[in-house]
């Protein structure tokens, strides 16, 4: 059975490659490219694009695939060992994953996203409630462990200190449940927040580059799948949901913003919510909001 890919991320090789199946989930699978320290992800979704993703929007009747099994791409078609399944990459649109820039004030948008996020986290009984990061006394163990490092990220970004920021990230990397742990998702969102406020400011660019180097080293302390997302984030490449959220902020339409926030929050079990948390943390650092000020006091 041959399926047509709807989109492919810019990190997916356009030429021939050999790979092995690294992991298999209900609605996605990861391929490890031979000769590269790099994963690409085949995922079923009607809208969600990733820099390393190959998106199909049909149910995948995957024949007996096994972790470690071979996959090869020749002439733009991926075929799998012991399976009639093939995925045609030709003609699929390319997802670059680059973020739009935020130039204007974001305080109002920040508050709307923050409220939507916290309400969603409470309702879904998420492991992490963003507000508790700043009021951790009665929070769960995981939140208490993340609280100081998250505050550390903000303080370090405010004074453009990439080394302090890396020290804070060190306490977060790989921390939490799931394949992309909570700490990692926060860091990915944090990078997105930094990139979208980069503008033409040299101090910000230098900070991102230096912190990116530190985070790249730290990424070896988390698992291969999560590391892939982090390394794309370091390069400024993100998912379509994060891009959609920033576009909604730029549009200045409250309804669209709430929709985009909720859509991003639905990614994974809690990954979307954790990424938004990190994103808002970065915005709070570089676009200081009165809402956040109360926690600093």
């Amino acid at each position, binding site marked *: 059975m041959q399926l047509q890919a709807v989109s492919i991320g810019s990190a997916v090789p356009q030429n021939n490659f050999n790979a092995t199946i690294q992991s298999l989930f*209900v609605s996605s699978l990861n391929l490890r490219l031979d000769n590269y320290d790099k994963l690409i992800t085949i995922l079923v979704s009607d809208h969600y694009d990733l820099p390393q993703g190959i998106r199909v929007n049909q149910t995948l009747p995957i024949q007996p695939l096994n972790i470690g099994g071979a996959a090869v791409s020749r002439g733009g078609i991926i075929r799998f060992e012991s399976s009639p399944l093939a995925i045609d990459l030709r003609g699929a649109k390319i997802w670059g994953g680059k973020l739009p820039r935020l130039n204007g004030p974001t305080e109002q948008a920040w508050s709307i996203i923050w409220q939507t996020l916290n309400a969603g986290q409470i309702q879904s009984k998420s492991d992490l409630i963003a507000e508790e990061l700043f009021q951790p006394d009665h929070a769960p163990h995981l939140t208490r462990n993340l609280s100081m490092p998250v505050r550390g990220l903000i303080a370090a970004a405010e004074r453009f200190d990439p080394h302090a920021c890396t020290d804070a990230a060190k306490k977060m990397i790989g921390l939490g449940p799931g394949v992309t742990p909570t700490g990692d998702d926060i860091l990915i969102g944090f990078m997105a927040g930094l990139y979208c406020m980069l503008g033409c400011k040299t101090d910000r660019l230098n900070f991102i580059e230096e912190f990116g180097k530190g985070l790249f080293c730290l990424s070896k302390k988390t698992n291969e799948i999560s590391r892939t997302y982090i390394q794309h984030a370091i390069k400024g490449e993100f998912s379509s949901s994060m891009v959609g959220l920033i576009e909604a902020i730029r549009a200045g339409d409250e309804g669209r913003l709430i929709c985009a926030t909720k859509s991003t929050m639905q990614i*994974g079990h809690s990954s979307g919510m954790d990424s938004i948390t990190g994103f808002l943390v970065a915005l709070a650092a570089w676009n200081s909001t009165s809402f956040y000020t109360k926690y600093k006091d």
Partner: protein
Amino acid sequence: MATAQRIIKNLYRDSVSLMQFSEKVRELDGIRQASAVMATENNISLLVEAGLLLQSVPASPNDLMIVVDGKDGASVDAALEQAEAMLKAKPTNMGDSGVQNMPPRSIEMGLETMPAANFVLISTPGEYAAAEARKALHLGLHVMMFSDNVSIEEEISLKQYAKNNNLLVMGPDCGTAIINGVPLGFANVVRRGDIGVIAASGTGLQQVTCLIDRLGGGITQAIGTGGHDLKSEVGGITMLQGIEALAADPKTKVILLVSKPPSPDVMKKVLEKAEESGKPVVAIFIGAEPANVTQANIIGVKTLEDAAVAAMNLSQGKQVGVFSNALPAEYASLVEPSTKKLIQTQKYVRALFSGGTFCYENLLLMSELLACVYSNIPLKKEYKLKDVWKSTEHTAIDLGDDLFTQGRPHPMIDFRLRNDRIIQEAKDPSTAVILLDVVLGHGSNMNPAGELIPAILQAQKIAAEANRQIIFVGFVCGTSTDPQNLTRQEELLRDAGVILTKSNAQAARLAAAIVSGR
């Protein structure tokens, strides 16, 4: 106590699978806690801090670490073996053939795999439910919204759109329905027949359909409307559409309506539509005076049991019959022997419900026979419990109320809260009767009697140590074809000393008679 860990190399499972896995391991014998996380340095430190790991262990962040805390070494070792086997098993949607079917991630994808589908069941957090329902309606699909917390404005908008496009929206907050013989949400396996049911109450629908089944009858459709449909703002859109549909359905001979009393304007519209149907209609508006409902082809009744009996009689071409408030002889004979078991201090009924409508009907019936009945959902505000965690005199509690279900599954699934309350009531020297509903069917716990009996036996032991006996009264809402095995469930409860009646109404009357007869 003992803790142990196991590391599985290069294994990835998604977060939801890991959460479900941890739950399953916690349910194993002798296990207190279980956790499965990627073995990163920070996660290992977290486990050490939490006391689940005695010391840091060497591992790679690509490994999965399982940590188990249990009563002894044998328990944790056995749990680790099972845990590893569970985690290494192929994903559950991968069949024996090895073919893995990726589940649809959207309504559109679902339609691609099942193009003939014309119905969608939506069970998402409330804030997303309306958007999904709108998508489904735009695709020409009927909708059942299990989700609650949808605004009344959204509900009106969705129902108006559906009505204008000849579609049906059941819900929001519609927990029960049986469509074309398929039980949806919390629902029972009920025989097909000629009675069509429309209900704004989940357990009300379950009670009437189960009683119809037990009486030898069956249903065509059981349509849920959601709890807000008969409010003035919504105007009973779904119930009115349901009546029209059942009136036009040649297989439906009798229509049965179930609800708390609607707003007066909506009640008028519903009764007019019911009259227009031209079919015999039985209406149970729990708490409304039957005489105010009865007219032309519509028979008003007082209890859910009366409604089932009336609908059955009409379906068989018999007279509706006259319904009595008196306790039937088969239960009346149990009153005196039960009363004799009570001592002077034992005065009160403590009714602990998992079904909200059962609690409400119980309050209405017990209040006719007893001075006052306190509750978290009282009939009069002066009978509202000051502290819902502690009973006052006669008390009926709806344990499915949001107050009790925050952060825990519904009491039809998770019996811990009710079992704790049974023990608490047993310690109170004034408790005479503990009344319980037991709900079977899809969605409910697979062995409710097995869940309740240890608490019942413990309660009887506590009472015996104080030279008391507690009378347990209950009823099972279910059918012989439900997955839980009705006969076995009833046998187990009777063996544990529970007096079982056939309906909620009879259980309420029997409990009241026992404490009144002293």
